[in-house]
């Protein structure tokens, strides 16, 4: 009786009018006719869009820092954290003339996310110690070929002149939470070494 709409089912003999079936059909016709004038539920997708949450988890972005260098250091924590095993990367060492391109000495020469595997849980973002990967409110576009869903750095890294705003996903609470070392996933490799040492 939660909605007050439940009806007691009675199995009784149908009356003559009910057996004639036509009044019931007529009622049904009226019901369907009324639906002609009701508001349509359709959202005409490319023109209209369903409102999505400000912290919607859609297509990933690899952030650059203020000077335009890539933040990712290819530590692999995102790949480890990924429950769908959608992320792969190849690490490389930065040369002297690449200093402006990469923030730290190690960087990802290849960074791929398979969007067909990805479940958009956001664990990669949580695991990242460098604030390099974020999920954005962009919806991953559909294509016809499987291999087109493996997004490389060409798609994932944000363009220097078109920065993406991810501040909504970087609330102070989130930042605070990420600093809190009592959660195991916030520990970096160094932290773990320290923890191990302190135990001994």
């Amino acid at each position: 009786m939660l909605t007050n709409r439940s009806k007691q089912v009675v199995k009784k003999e149908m009356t003559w009018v009910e057996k004639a079936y036509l009044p019931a059909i007529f009622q049904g016709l009226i019901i369907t006719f009324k639906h002609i004038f009701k508001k349509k539920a359709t959202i005409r997708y490319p023109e209209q869009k369903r409102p999505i949450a400000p912290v919607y988890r859609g297509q990933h972005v690899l952030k650059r820092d203020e000077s335009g260098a890539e933040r990712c250091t290819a530590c692999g924590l995102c790949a480890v954290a990924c429950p769908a095993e959608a992320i792969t990367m190849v690490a490389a060492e930065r040369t002297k003339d690449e200093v402006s391109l990469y923030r730290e000495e190690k960087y990802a020469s290849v960074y791929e996310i398979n969007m067909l595997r990805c479940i958009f849980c956001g664990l990669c973002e949580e695991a990242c110690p460098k604030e390099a990967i974020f999920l954005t409110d962009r919806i991953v576009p559909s294509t016809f070929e499987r291999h087109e869903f493996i997004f490389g750095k060409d798609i994932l890294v944000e363009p220097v002149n078109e920065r993406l705003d991810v501040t909504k996903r970087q609330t102070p609470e989130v930042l605070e939470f990420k600093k809190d070392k009592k959660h195991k996933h916030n520990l970096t490799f160094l932290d773990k070494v320290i923890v191990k040492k302190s135990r001994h």
Partner: protein
Amino acid sequence: MQPLLIKAILVVIIFVITLLVALYATFAERKVSAIMQDRIGPNRAGPFGLLQPLADGVKMFMKEELIPSLSNKWLFIIGPCIALLTSFMTGVVIPWGGSITIGETTFDLQITDLNIGILYLFGVVSMGVYGIMIGGWASNNKFSLIGAIRASSQMISYEIAMGLAIIALVMTTGTLSLKDIVMQQDAGFANIVYQPVGFLIFLICAFAETNRAPFDMPECETELIGGYHTEYSSLKLGFYLFAEYINMFVSSAVIACFYFGGYNFPFQTELQNWLGFSNNVLSILQVLAMFGKVLFFIFFFMWVRWTIPRFRYDQLMTLGWKILLPLALINIFITGIVMYFSGSIN
């Protein structure tokens, strides 16, 4: 102008109109189903999706033409052709309007006024079942065969009740010519007032004859995966689907002619006398009135389809044999008694 030439032009015009109406009926079906389910329906091809039938047609042409290797190839091809042919043939006897005078010649807006029009109509309609049966049999597929068997038994069952419903109408009108039936209704009441039960039986049987929901047992997407046209693809499937919509168009026209005054509209002679327009203008208005009625009934066919679920097979047979057939007989009987006492027969 030569009478033959006029007829030829009329045939072509009606052929094209039939095609157009059937084409847009497919579109209307999708639109009507959509708005009754609170959706919008096709709206991408052209303004309001009006070019959708063209896109569907192109799709039908472009699809791969499959003929099952174990099928009877000739019958497999003939089936849809018969279905389409018979559905086109039924439109011949329907009067679409009064007469039009150009110069010296006056011609009726009807391809041919057979004095046994109703008989012709029934003959052709019952030929239509061969298209479905041959197609279902030639496919060499059990679903197709079940669909074909259902179609034939359903059509035969409902043709009887339909014929008996019409007999009562023929008794009151005293003619088998559609033109005469329509002309009798040009003043006074339409036939539905005299034959309400007959109309109801005829309407229900028309649904069954055109294989429309709730009588779409031969197709039955959910249980027979398309029924008799399971194995069909491309243009031949298009023929079958098209035949269904043409049947719907023609049976709407027949219902309008038999029971709703055909091309006549209320107060037409008064309107003509009052405004004083010529017979040609009146005929054009009558054609519009006819098409208004036809389009309403096409809408009604769709409206019912998206309201009522499909009958179970035994319910279908019970309705046909145990309810409609006795009802039609009683209707004939009562019509006879009333006619006897009112003095129209002795």
